[in-house]
């Protein structure tokens, strides 16, 4: 049984740096204890997009960056006995597992033992009406069209089981992000399913590193007030956990970034609502007794997590078609730019009043009022005194044709609008509406399948 476990984060979101894991693996290889590398690459809507891709091509539907995440570190992990755990399986963990096997073969490595955790996908197991009856805080599903994806957040036990069976690589679809860390800890320390305080500590360790650099200086720097050294080469985190659930957060020696009380507390509370009751599939985590202590440069000890019995229900995210988002931008610069931009906005809004009176349109003035403003009125452009103005128009509708009415009008400003209109860019993005449901555990059917046992 391990005395100390080291878990590094190789990615904290689907679009994360693909070269971040290398220095983490090098550091893990020098650590004495059980070692794991986790990848968290699955946002809410990522899974629905992956499901759509799988429908088009049954060999796809996993994280498109899988190869770029895995190929650079697979040989070193297999050599050093560092196990890899990732939710990059998205909507098709089996295809991801086969892809990893192929990568290993291409690199001339021994065939890794690859396990797939399945059972998060509710499609075909729970009806649309059953999901609608379990929607939290809304009634979107009752009136929505076809369901695109419905996935439970599985807990850490199946990941632990996969590692118990000797997996070198564990591929999952939707699991709680923190389970990617708690699973290895349950495996390495033999933690029981009702050891609530330890499960809480493991969940906290997962919460702290699941967003990668966000605990080591990323999403933190504010020059002059909160400076971060060498953010361009920020080191991704490594959590050291002892068998009683004590956590130390660090990062590879010589890497950029910083790990201290400030960076750790910001991440500790990231996306938390009630700090006394953070609901995970395996435990309810209470953060109110947690303390954070700097024990060495770039090393922070975190202790005091408490746990209560796991919730009766599991969360599921359900995605349905959300129509199309259309965005178009145009710039005005130089003398009297504000008046010309204002005129341009008025022209577009007047045209849309006639051509698409029901379409809700948002107007932003980028660099003046966009992020901190509110939707509705056109911002007061002249008040800002800018002579370099970028207007942004946005609308959402069920069909491309409806938003094209807006985008066409913005583009038409080139010839038919105020003087000097420049740099039109337009794009449309398919949208997915997502809702949360609470699902009884009887609908959960987590299974572990080894790749060599797959049909």
């Amino acid at each position, binding site marked *: 049984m391990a005395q100390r476990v080291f878990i590094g984060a190789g990615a904290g979101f689907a679009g994360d740096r693909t070269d971040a894991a290398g220095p983490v693996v090098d550091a893990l290889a020098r650590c004495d204890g059980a070692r794991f590398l986790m990848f968290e690459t699955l946002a809410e809507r990522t899974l629905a997009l992956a499901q759509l891709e799988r429908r088009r091509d049954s060999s796809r539907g996993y994280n498109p960056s899988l190869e770029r995440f895995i190929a650079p570190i697979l040989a070193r992990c297999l050599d050093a006995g560092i196990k890899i755990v990732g939710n990059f399986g998205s909507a098709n963990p089996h295809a991801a597992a086969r892809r990893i096997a192929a990568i290993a073969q291409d690199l001339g490595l021994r065939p890794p033992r690859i396990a797939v955790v399945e059972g998060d996908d509710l499609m075909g197991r729970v009806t649309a009406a059953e999901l609608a009856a379990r929607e939290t805080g809304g009634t979107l599903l009752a009136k929505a069209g076809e369901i695109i994806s419905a996935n439970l957040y599985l807990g850490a036990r199946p990941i632990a089981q996969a590692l118990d069976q000797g997996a070198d690589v564990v591929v999952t679809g939707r699991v709680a992000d923190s389970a990617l860390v708690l699973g290895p800890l349950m495996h390495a320390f033999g933690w029981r399913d009702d050891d609530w305080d330890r499960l809480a500590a493991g969940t906290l360790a997962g919460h702290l590193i699941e967003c990668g650099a966000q605990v080591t200086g990323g999403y933190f720097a504010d020059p002059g007030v909160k400076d971060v050294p060498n953010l361009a080469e920020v080191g991704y985190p490594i959590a050291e956990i002892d068998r009683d659930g004590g956590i130390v957060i660090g990062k590879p020696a010589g890497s950029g970034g910083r790990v201290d009380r*400030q960076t750790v507390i910001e991440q500790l509370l*990231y996306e938390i609502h009630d700090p006394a009751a953070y609901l995970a599939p395996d435990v309810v985590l209470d953060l109110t007794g947690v303390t954070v202590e700097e024990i060495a440069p770039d090393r922070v000890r975190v202790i005091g997590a408490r746990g209560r019995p796991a919730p009766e229900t599991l969360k599921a995210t359900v995605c349905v078609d*959300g129509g199309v*988002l259309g965005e178009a931008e145009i710039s005005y610069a130089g003398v009297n730019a504000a008046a010309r931009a204002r005129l341009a906005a008025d022209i577009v809004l007047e045209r849309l009043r006639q051509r698409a009176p029901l379409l809700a349109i948002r107007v932003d003035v*980028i660099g003046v009022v966009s992020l*901190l403003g509110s939707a509705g009125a056109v911002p007061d452009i002249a008040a800002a005194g800018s002579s370099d103005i970028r207007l942004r128009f*946005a609308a959402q509708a069920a069909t491309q044709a409806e938003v094209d009415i807006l985008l066409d009008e913005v583009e038409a400003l080139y010839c038919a609008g105020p003087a000097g209109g420049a740099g039109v860019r337009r794009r449309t993005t398919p949208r997915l509406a997502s809702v949360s449901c609470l699902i009884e555990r009887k609908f959960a059917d987590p299974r572990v399948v080894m790749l060599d046992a797959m049909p």
Partner: protein
Amino acid sequence: MSKTMVELRDIANARSGDKGNRLNIALVCRDPAHYPVVAAQVTADRVAEAFASRKPTRVVRYDLPNLAAFNFVLDDVLEGGVNASLGLDGHGKSLSFLLLAITIEV
């Protein structure tokens, strides 16, 4: 001792996170000694006022004295959230800076 006005940014850090149409902002005192003055002045009502343009339906403050930190939870301020907002920042990632602009007396 005379008191001075400071922006929260001068003494505290903040980080935004989202879940659907709900925003949370962690506010962390850089010097734990400032915890009591922040607790006294940066109330849920004060934060609701700072976010009035986003029309929060509910603002709750959770206190974490061990960490010299607070967690503010603001309901329905993300214009529908990342899957529905027409704005550029459906996650509300920039909104921590609205909180950091609040001025208090220290």
